[in-house]
């Protein structure tokens, strides 16, 4: 899952990055509104964590432009503005949720999970398909009732594929979702992860679409 954090305070941004990266999310972090606007136009993210008081372009304006562009990315506002009127303004501008600083890290993680779940059209916290079950809260995977131990990277990859059964996810999107901009990615890392998952679960679950990407079969 690839998240975009827009927060101008360095110390807070670092803290959020540490906390969410530990959950296995890929977090890209920008410190100003204009940079975020460019990134949102050219890249794909699963969720936006948005501070309101941003240099160069105010967070609320950024959000309004995002919605005007027909972008339906889930947005969680992180802000110190705690007035009811401001919360209403934030939600009306198109935010999906609103978290007031200082916030509890576990609550932040839970809200991120809930927003991602909703955006994937699920009400159930567990992602289940073809005997495989994923718990985003604990990042635990089980296959036919038995727990399967996976690494955080493997979990993220499986998660990306499992939330859209039957839809082909491109290699580019997968590698962006897993690594963001930060790390250099070895060209064959994706193949290694897919190989491991097939071995741990079952070979037929993930099908390779040559030259495009991977898909979890709707009916295996």
């Amino acid at each position, binding site marked *: 899952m690839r998240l975009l954090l827009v927060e101008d305070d*360095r*110390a807070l941004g670092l803290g959020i990055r*540490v906390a969410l990266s530990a959950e296995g999310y890929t977090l890209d972090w920008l410190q100003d509104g204009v940079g975020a606007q460019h990134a949102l136009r050219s890249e794909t993210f699963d969720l936006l964590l948005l501070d309101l008081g941003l*240099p160069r372009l105010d967070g609320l304006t950024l959000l309004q432009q995002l919605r005007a562009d027909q972008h339906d990315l889930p947005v969680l506002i*992180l802000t*110190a503005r705690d007035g009811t009127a401001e919360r209403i303004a934030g939600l009306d501008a198109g935010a999906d949720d609103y978290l007031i600083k*200082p916030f509890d*890290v576990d609550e932040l993680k839970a809200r991120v999970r809930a927003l991602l779940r909703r955006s994937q059209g699920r009400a159930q916290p567990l992602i289940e398909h073809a005997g495989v079950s994923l718990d985003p809260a604990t990042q635990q995977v089980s296959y036919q009732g038995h727990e399967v131990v996976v690494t955080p990277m493997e979990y993220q990859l499986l998660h990306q594929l499992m939330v859209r059964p039957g839809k082909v996810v491109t290699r580019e999107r997968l590698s962006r979702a897993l690594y963001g901009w930060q790390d250099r990615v070895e060209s064959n890392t994706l193949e290694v992860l897919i190989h491991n998952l097939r071995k741990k679960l079952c070979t037929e679950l993930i099908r390779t679409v040559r030259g495009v990407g991977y898909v979890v079969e709707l009916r295996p």
Partner: protein
Amino acid sequence: MSVRARILVPVLILVLIGDVLISWLALRDSHHEIEEVYDAQLAQSARLLQGVLRQRAQGENDWERLYQAFDDAMSRVGDGEAAHPYETRLTFQVWRTSGELLVRSAEAPVLEFPPTTLGSHDLMENGRDWCAFLLADPQQGLLIWVGERDDIRQDLIQRIVRHTLWPTLIGVPLLAALIWLTIGWGFKPLRAMTQAIRGHNTDTLQPLQLRPLPVDLAPMQTALNGLLGQIDTLLERERRFIADAAHELRTPLAILRIHAQNAQHAGTAQQREEALEFLVSGVDRATRIGSQLLTMARIEPHLNNPDIRAVELTALVREELAELTPLALEKEVELVLDGDLDCEIRTDPVALAIALQNLVTNALNFSPPGSEVRVRVRPQASGAVYISVVDSGPGIDEAAYARLFERFYSQGNANGAGLGLAIVEMIVGKIGSSLKLYNLPQGGLCAELRLNQR
């Protein structure tokens, strides 16, 4: 002691003293005048007697008949119906010029020989005072004496005078009561004002609008409204400050919380160590924000009444730099003062020192180790003085220039409280100076403070 009593007591004392004085004067005068009237009455009676004596037939010496007539007319007062309470009982006697007594009424004093004084006189006989009138009639060769007892006369006079005192005795208490009520009525606007003020509390500090307002209460209302206005401004500032502080402390608190929780959840010792380091620097930052907020809260009211005086500028700058030397040493930045010229300027030293402290601290915080921060004092011919603080840090983002002066904007600097420039700007505006920030072509930032001669 109430104002009403303060007015009433002296007024009553004055009224009382005035009344006693006036009454005493009136009594003395009326006593005297009444005496005169009675004396005149004696004289008149003597002349009446003289007239009657002249009417007697030549050679008639029937003194007994005359005596009876006079005695009836003069001594039997108060008998019968047509009596007047203030009539006096007169006595009389008549002598020949030779001193032979011809007639004497029964109550008249027994005198060996007629008195020597003609006209009104007092005399004493047998322990009694008498008021008398002696009339000489050389034509008939008679001395006519009419008199009355002084104690009886005094009794009558006292009765008359006592009657005149009654209104005064009743009048004074009545007057006191009326004055009391009148003062109360006069104080009505003051009571209305008290009521209006009592109706105010810190939530409703609207100015008083009393109507009708007596002329002498208008200055009081104006002064009170001025004070209310000041209190309102002060409370509003406090409220804004508290709201701002509470709001802006949320970000530093969020930083503390997230790093604390990251430390709790850390998987490795190294991650925990990192999170704890962030936590410590977050605490430092929150502390700085706290102390800068306090500086701001203290300087704001001070700036409304700046303490403008002649200041030795170079000495002041040198002192401030000396205080910041420990920070410079810690940052490994050299702090240099240019300008040994003594120059004096009229300004507020406390505010200027705080402004300077903030500018130099900023410069030190943004300077790389090994560089220098140069403070220059340059007096101008016009009397103005430029103080510039030059660093070799990253300079400022021109796009964010306007936001630099916003409270709590710290250009993403994790150590900044974001209040330094806001404080400087606040001070600069109030002490009649100006601040310019610009990036230098060779890199670094120049913060230039222009102090105008006040």
